[in-house]
Structures are given as structure tokens and as C-alpha cells.
């Protein structure tokens, strides 16, 4: 079917026109996609406003409140960024895998394993507590990327060698990752019988803006940490790999047409494994940033908070573009933060949901155009 009709044939209608959706013959211009996304967001805020008004709230005040709660002053902007940081990394992780049409929905588990790797450096301890942060933090990052990468390697290897469906394996490995850190939190590294580890020494903390408040008083109380820079740096690296490197070219070619890639002499199995490792390592880096920059210990609830799953959504909304991922992550960080501020907190989740549905639905307009026909013309 190349065209769908919204009205059934042969029925007389009182409305003097008919709406038809016709498949676009020509590509819409490049800016069209951004415009449609923007309209979709405005439209979803409008829909959300109707719901808020329906339950007796004032939509304008609610939105103003949400905006203030996430962007109102430098303090909350910083908090928004803190929330956005892990999402940037998990979304980047998902985007590289999705680019090759590897459906890695295990960023959550890879994120957790990255947090575990960073924690292991501190708590085994691989490095003594008095080590300089200049050595400590890079070591934690490398460790987290290795453990996260391992969590990506396993499904990648199974897919490449045995054609095991990666959706199943990555999903299942999420639960194994949670069970794995629970074992360490409850049994090995338990802090006084509580399901948390001890707090990291400050040498293992990622530097935060407030650390520089002595020199620059404005920064007092701002918890944004090095993770943001890591995230942005990772976005640049991912962009460069995908669009400028030979490897990225192979990934894009495989993702667009696997048979053509094979025909071009590209080793699909090898790339499957490598891309899954990269994806896992990026998500793992997100885990490192979260334990090193925010939580400062390993603990199930704030670490395994679903950042890996949010990353899937963000990667799609950003159409796999690394820089768009940074922006969309900040939007989602803001909504998460606002959810803590306004009551009922479900409102922001509802808005998140409506935005998501609108954006996905708006993709339809990229492929179809809507036309009106006067019924009179047809008679």
C-alpha cells in the first residue's frame, strides 16, 4: 500500500471535504525534521495542559513551575545537568549499537557494571585511598569501560558466533548485573550490614563545580561534575567515529544494508562484537560518572534507576545524532528533576510520555503529507 485513505469509499459525508494522507514522493527538506519535532513538542505541551486543566490545575502555572524547577536558577540548572549526564552516556551507547541495527537494550546492565568496575577500583582496593585524583579517576573510568564493555561483549559474541538474538541476551544481562552488584553490596562490601558500600574517599570523587567555590563564589552548591564533560567529549568522539572514520563508515553501511556491507568485504561478525563492546563501554562510563560524581558509593537504588532504558528513548528521539542526544538528554534531565518538585509527580511523567508519543507519531509526517479534497470536486 502506498497510500491510505481515511474515509471509506462510497459513503456520503456531511463534511464538505475529505482528508487523505498521501505518501511523500519527494524528500522533505532537511530542516523539516527539526520543525516537525518542535511542533510535536509544542503540541504535546498543549495536550498535557488540557489534562492538567481537566484535573483542576492551572496549566500555565504548572508549566511555569516545571520550568522554574528545572531551569529557574543556576542551582537547578546544575541539578538538571547532573540528571542529564548519565542519560547522555547511555543514549550514546544505544545510538552506536542502533546505528548498526544491533538492538542493545542492555545499556542499563552495562551502566551498572560500569559503576561496579569503578567501585572495584576503590574498594578492592586496586589503588590506595591517598592516590591522586589524576590517577584515581582515569583508572576508575578505564575499569568501568572494561566491565561495561565486557557486558556488551557477551551478547555481541553470542550474536556474532551463534546468532543468538541480542535483544534477549542484553535484556537478561540487565538482571544479572543487578543481581551481581546486589551480591557485593549485601555480602562483600556491605557497610555495617546495610545494602550500601562505604563512601568513597574524596580522591575518587569526580571534581564538581562547588569544589571551586573558594575561587569563584558563584559556584557554591553547584553539583555538576566532570561527568558532563566526559559525556560531551564522548558525543564528539562518537560523532567522529560514526561520520569520519573508516570504522564508522562500516557501521553505517552494515546498519543500512547488511548484504551490501558483506559484498563490500566487511566482516560483519567482527563489527558486531566491536560495536557491542563500544556500546557497553560508553554505558559503563555513564555508570562510572554516576558513582564517582553523584552517589560516591555503590548502592542499588540511585544507580540502577533506569538510565539505561531512558537512554534508548533519548537515542531514538535524537535520531541517533550524538549532539542532538546531548540536548534531548538535558530535556529529559529537566523533566526528571521537575518530577521531584511538582505534585503530583506523575504529571511530568505524563508529559514525558506525551512528548514521546507525539515525537514518534510526528515521524509519520516525514513520510506522508496530508491533503484536503473538497467532496464537491470529486462528484
Amino acid at each position, binding site marked *: *500500500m*502506498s*497510500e491510505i*485513505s481515511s*474515509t471509506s*469509499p*462510497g459513503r456520503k459525508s456531511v463534511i464538505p471535504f475529505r482528508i*487523505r494522507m*498521501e505518501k511523500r*514522493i*519527494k*524528500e522533505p527538506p532537511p530542516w523539516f525534521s527539526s520543525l516537525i519535532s518542535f511542533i510535536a513538542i509544542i503540541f504535546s505541551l498543549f495536550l498535557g495542559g488540557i489534562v492538567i486543566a481537566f484535573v483542576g490545575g492551572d496549566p500555565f502555572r504548572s508549566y511555569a513551575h516545571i520550568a522554574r524547577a528545572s531551569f529557574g536558577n543556576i542551582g537547578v540548572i546544575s541539578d538538571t545537568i547532573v540528571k542529564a549526564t548519565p542519560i547522555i552516556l547511555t543514549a550514546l551507547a544505544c545510538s552506536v549499537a542502533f546505528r548498526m541495527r544491533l538492538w542493545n537494550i542492555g545499556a542499563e546492565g552495562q551502566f551498572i557494571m560500569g559503576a561496579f568496575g569503578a567501585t572495584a577500583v576503590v574498594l578492592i582496593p586496586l589503588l590506595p585511598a591517598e592516590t591522586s585524583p589524576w590517577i584515581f579517576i582515569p583508572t576508575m573510568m578505564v575499569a568501568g569501560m572494561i566491565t561495561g564493555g565486557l557486558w556488551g561483549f557477551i551478547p555481541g559474541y553470542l550474536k556474532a558466533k551463534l546468532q543468538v538474538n541480542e535483544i534477549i541476551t542484553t535484556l537478561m544481562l540487565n538482571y544479572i548485573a543487578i543481581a551481581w552488584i546486589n551480591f557485593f553490596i549485601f555480602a562483600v562490601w556491605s557497610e555495617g550490614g546495610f545494602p550500601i558500600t562505604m563512601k568513597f574517599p574524596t580522591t575518587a570523587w569526580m571534581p564538581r563545580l562547588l569544589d571551586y567555590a573558594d575561587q569563584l563564589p558563584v559556584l557554591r552548591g553547584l553539583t555538576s561534575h566532570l561527568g558532563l564533560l566526559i559525556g560531551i567529549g564522548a558525543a564528539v568522539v562518537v560523532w567522529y567515529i560514526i561520520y*569520519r*572514520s*573508516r*570504522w*564508522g*563508515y562500516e557501521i*553505517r*553501511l552494515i546498519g*543500512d*544494508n547488511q*548484504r*551490501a*556491507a*558483506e*559484498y*563490500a*568485504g566487511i*566482516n560483519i561478525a567482527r563489527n558486531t562484537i566491536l560495536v557491542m563492546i563500544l556500546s557497553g563501554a560508553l554505558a559503563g562510563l555513564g555508570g562510572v560518572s554516576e558513582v564517582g560524581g553523584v552517589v560516591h558509593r555503590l548502592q542499588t537504588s540511585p544507580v540502577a534507576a533506569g538510565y539505561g532504558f531512558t537512554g534508548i528513548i533519548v537515542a531514538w528521539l535524537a535520531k541517533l545524532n550524538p549532539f542532538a542526544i546531548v540536548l534531548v538528554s538535558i530535556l529529559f534531565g529537566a523533566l526528571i528533576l521537575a518530577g521531584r518538585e511538582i505534585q503530583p509527580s506523575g504529571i511530568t511523567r505524563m508529559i514525558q510520555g506525551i512528548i514521546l508519543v507525539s515525537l514518534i507519531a510526528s515521524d509519520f509526517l516525514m513520510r506522508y503529507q496530508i491533503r484536503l*479534497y473538497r467532496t464537491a470536486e*470529486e462528484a
Partner: protein
Amino acid sequence: MRQITDIVAEMRGIVKQFPGVLANDQVDFELQRGEIHALLGENGAGKSTLVNILTGLYRQDLGSIRVNGQDVNLSSPGDAISVGIGMVHQHFMLVPSQTVTENILIGLDQPRFRMNLQQYERDVSELGQRFGLKVDPRAKIWQLSVGEQQRVEILKILYRGAQILILDEPTAVLAPQEIDQLFETLRSMVEDGKSVVFISHKLHEVMEISDRITILRKGKVTAAGLQTSDISQPELAKLMVGRDVEFTVEKQAQVPGETVLEVDNVYAENDKRLPALQGISFVVQSGEILGLAGVAGNGQRELAQVLSGLRKCIDGSVKLNGKIISNTPIKNAINKGVAYIPEDRTHVGSAPNLSVTDNVIMKNYRRPPIAKGWVIDADAATSFAEGLKDSYEIIVPTVETPVRLLSGGNLQRVILAREFSGEPVLIVAVQPTRGLDVGAIEGVHRLLLSQRDAGAAILLISEELEELFALSDRIAVIFEGQLMGEMKDGDVDIIGLMMTGTPLDQIEPQGMESNV
């Protein structure tokens, strides 16, 4: 002579504007009862748009359609079938895991709840017998050959009571014998009073099967309802492309050089792990074109894949300039100068959503100047693509355009540009002109010959005998994975016998020289 006054469908003044292109410009089309009416035109001439309007897939901007003398308003394929118009698309729309009968019943109101399949199976086979469409109603679609699947598509339309059948390039997927069978079916349908619109750009088929011909060029009708008996094939070609077409390409005599490709007793399996190649041996020399004739599915695809490294052979060897290239990584064959023009342009030969640039660097992105270490030099890639765009006359706004927006002929030029730009020593071309229009075919033929004259060894695998005769220096025939023989001068009858499984040495010599 049939009665030709009874008009069943009439399209008047059809205009359809697509952004940037006027696909149909005041097109008139008239279909009579009991005729086979060929709709002829190059790719992009507006044939598909016209029949898509007639089957309710598109809506005309201007113009009217009358069916059996009544004005009709067709806004969906359902509307079209309700007035008796049905279409067999080039790409079949069947459910592979279901049976023939189930596929025919899909979307109908009957049976309502209980599937009384036996009764419907009887109906289906009766209908099939009536029109010479032999197919087992209980067979699952995936078990059927392409030709049989096409019969199911036709049955599907007949079952829905269609009086007007539109067939979009029905012969493109068929073997010669199947084409004959299809033509018989079409004839029996028109004898039954049905009408057929036959879309094609194969002139000889149109000459053979049609009663009348309407020709479209660039959205306009250049000839309406010509009697096929009143016109010759060259005249048709001229009306279609607007200039004289050379049917025989100028070919210089060429002395073949050294042996480039040596295929020695190769055995290989197909995707279903059944034997596909059973001991194939031949050589191709530099500066010659070896044509490989055969009915589709006799191992041609597998042979091309073995040569390009995409498929392993289980026995025997393939040597390129004396070095074994069989069962080595695909990259090895590419680096040694094997160019491969696959049969399937969109699914194998190109990446549809990537740009022209990304598509032309597929084979040389690993080497300088495109590669700089592990980075791809975007400027070098762009200028490489620009260069190919100019020298191969690829018509595209910019080299950043995704190739899915290119027409078949242009896409094939992208692929040829990529494969030929590496100065290949061996070219394996499989059906390089399939689905292209006359003008584009001519261009492809010229390019192949220029590569031959430049000293490449070329294996041309084709189902078009005309093409093989025009281009090849020698012609070999493949049947069930074995070579039946090889000859220098094409004799259609002998090649026909070989294509149906008679080895050349068993064919009675008819006083003609043959070269084994």
C-alpha cells in the same frame, strides 16, 4: 479480427503532478473488451503512475475515468476491484507461510468464520484449470517458484471477479518457458472476454503478445492504441525513447590476451544447502566477454558469488592470474581487482539511505586517497564521487543525495562507476541491464565494451539472449549447475537446446562449426 468497439475502461485527460515532475500530462488511455493492450515506455515515463491511478492507489489531479461507460471515483484498490480492475504488481504480495488458497481468500468476506478450505480449494483449482494457471491450491507459497507465485497473484485477481487485469512487468521474473505459459494464459483470458493491460519495456514481448500498444514518453502519450500488426520493433523503440536506438552495439574485433580467470571443477551449494554448481570449469581471457546463458536458477547466482568471494565452494578452485581466490575473504578478491555487478541493485549493490558518495567508496574506502589511516578523508571522497558523477553521467542533484531516490538506470550507473573506477582485471556482471529502459541499456552495454577494450576479462551472466549475442565473444550455457557447452557464434536453436539440458556434444552437428 476481434470485435473492437466495446470499450471497458477509458481514461481521459489524466494529469498527475508530483513535486518537480509532471508524471502524467493529459494522458488518454482506452481499453477494449477482449484485448491485450501493451503500455510501453521507459522508466519514469509515467506508466506506473497511470496504472496506479487506474487501480486507486493514486488520485489524478485532473481528468476522468470511466469503466463500462460509467464515471467512477477510485480512491482505493478496494474501489478498483469492486468495478473489476485488478493488478499484479512486480513485487508479489503473498504470505509465504500460508497456502495458495489461503492467500487467495485473504481480505475477502467469505469464508466468514469457519474455513471450509476444501470447497475453496476446489474453486481455486477449477479457476486455475479454466485459464491454464496450474498450481496446487494446498501448496505453501514458499514452496513455489517465482512463476507459480505469479500464477497465484493472477488467480487472486480472477477470484475477485476482475474483468480488467493489469500486469506490471510480468515477464521480468520469468524463465522463457514460463513466459510462454503466461502468454497462453493471457490469451485464454482475453478469449473469455477479459481485458489485459500489459506493462513492459521489452519490445519483442510486446510485439508478440499485444493487440494494441499505447506508448508513453515523459508523461505524454506519443502513440495511442496502435495496432501491433501495423508497426515494427524499431519504430516502437523510436516512439519510446524519441530517437533511433542501436540494437546492435558497435563491437571491435579483439584478440583475447592472457588467461585471467580460471575456474576449475567448482562445486558449490545454494542457500538451501542443495548442490548448485556441479563441476564447472571455464576460463576467461583478458579483453574478452564470455557470456553465460541459462534459465534463471541454474546456478548463475551461486557462480557469481563464488567468483566474488561471497560464497564458499566445496570443491575445485578459482584462480585469478594464477593465484587462488576461492574460499578467501571477500576483501581479497576486491583488492585483486574483481569487480562484481550484482543482480540485485537495491539489496546487494547499494546502501539505499546512504549518499552517492558513501555508495561509490564502498570498494576503495580502505585505501588512500579515500582512507587516511583509520579516518576517511571526506574531501577526497566527495571529489572522487564528483568525478564519477561527471564521467559516468549520474544524474543527481548533489553527491550527498541518498541513492534510494535514484532511478534504476542512475543507480546502476552509480554501481558501474564504483566497480569500473578501480580498473578491474575481472568483471562479473549479473543481469546488468535488468529492469532498465532502452536508453540506459545502451549506456551499460557501451561501458561494458569499453572495459573489454581496456583489457578486462568479463563474465556476463544474463537471461537476455539478445544481449548475450550482442556483447559476447563466446557464449557458454549453464544448466543445473553444469556447463552444457560453449560456442563462438550464437545459434539460437542450439543454445535453446543447451538451456533445456542437452549438452553440446550430443547435439547433432548441423553442418555448422561449433567450438567446445
